[in-house]
């Protein structure tokens, strides 16, 4: 399987346009290739909208069937990948709303939009109003943050899965899967500004989670 983990640029590849042409022509090998490349990412992506891994797997499989049925309507305006994920996300959203996992996607307001707990800053009116009262500590020497650390990874995954659907979806597409902002807007049908807000909130939550992990680990030692 080609190494899909790395952040490759999302340039429309000749190879994938050819794959779609072959798909339309009924070429099973082309279909198998596309599935092999994207299925795992699509399952992870679906997880933003549905409550279990099993449901995410179902959604991804349904999406592939929708892909096959709709392949002749694929217009080369978007990349193959954006098109695939758009289909996937539509399926996932429908299923998610049905399972009450996510509110209708239009509800972006997430209450208090602060990235960091206000207690971390001196209050307005204080001499140092607006500045850190409990400053962030450098993570550079923290062994717990090594990517290989299983426990950190599991915490990261769980934290990602706990994000509201919209934030989770944007984070998965942008930071996990390496889609561009434009890809995300097209696949999720959101404006660039909205995409940024979601990205900001999601990333802020994840940073806070990591900070908590490190603090707890430091305290335990």
């Amino acid at each position, binding site marked *: 399987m080609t190494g899909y983990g790395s952040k490759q640029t999302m340039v429309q590849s000749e190879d994938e346009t050819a794959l779609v042409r072959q798909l339309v022509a009924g070429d099973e090998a082309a279909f198998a290739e596309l599935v*092999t490349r994207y299925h795992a990412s699509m399952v992870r992506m679906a997880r933003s909208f549905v409550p279990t891994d099993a449901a995410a797997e179902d959604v991804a499989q349904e999406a592939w*069937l929708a892909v096959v049925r709709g392949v002749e309507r694929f217009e080369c305006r978007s990349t193959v990948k954006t098109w695939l994920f758009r289909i996937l996300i539509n399926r996932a959203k429908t299923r998610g709303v049905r399972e009450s996992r996510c509110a209708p996607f239009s509800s972006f307001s997430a209450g208090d939009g602060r*990235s960091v707990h206000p207690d971390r800053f001196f209050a307005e009116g204080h001499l140092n109003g607006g500045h850190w009262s409990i400053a962030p500590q450098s993570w550079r020497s923290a062994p717990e*943050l090594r990517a290989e650390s299983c426990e950190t990874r599991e915490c990261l995954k769980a934290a990602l899965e706990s994000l509201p659907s919209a934030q989770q979806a944007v984070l998965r597409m942008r930071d996990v899967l390496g889609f561009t902002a434009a890809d995300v807007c097209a696949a999720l049908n959101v404006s660039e500004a909205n995409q*940024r807000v979601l990205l900001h909130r999601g990333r802020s939550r994840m940073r806070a989670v990591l900070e908590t992990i490190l603090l707890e680990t430091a305290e335990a030692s």
Partner: protein
Amino acid sequence: MTKPEPLCCVEFVELVTDWLEGALTAFERTLVDDHLAACEACTTYLDQMRQTISMLATLADDDPAAILIDRLLIAFGELHRRRHDD
């Protein structure tokens, strides 16, 4: 002309994503850069944010989910035949 208000930290943390995305105006960028130059805590925060993003990227390396590809291939074959039998 009065000097513009410098950023404080609580404002900076809300601008960090826009800054990374290149979505700030030139003026806003200057405010942020000036603040970073003067504030070690926020420089650390930015670094944490960057590390958070890097760690998210590592989640893409998970083992692929088991694919019931045979079932999909059968469905694919059927759909194609049906479409072209009309």
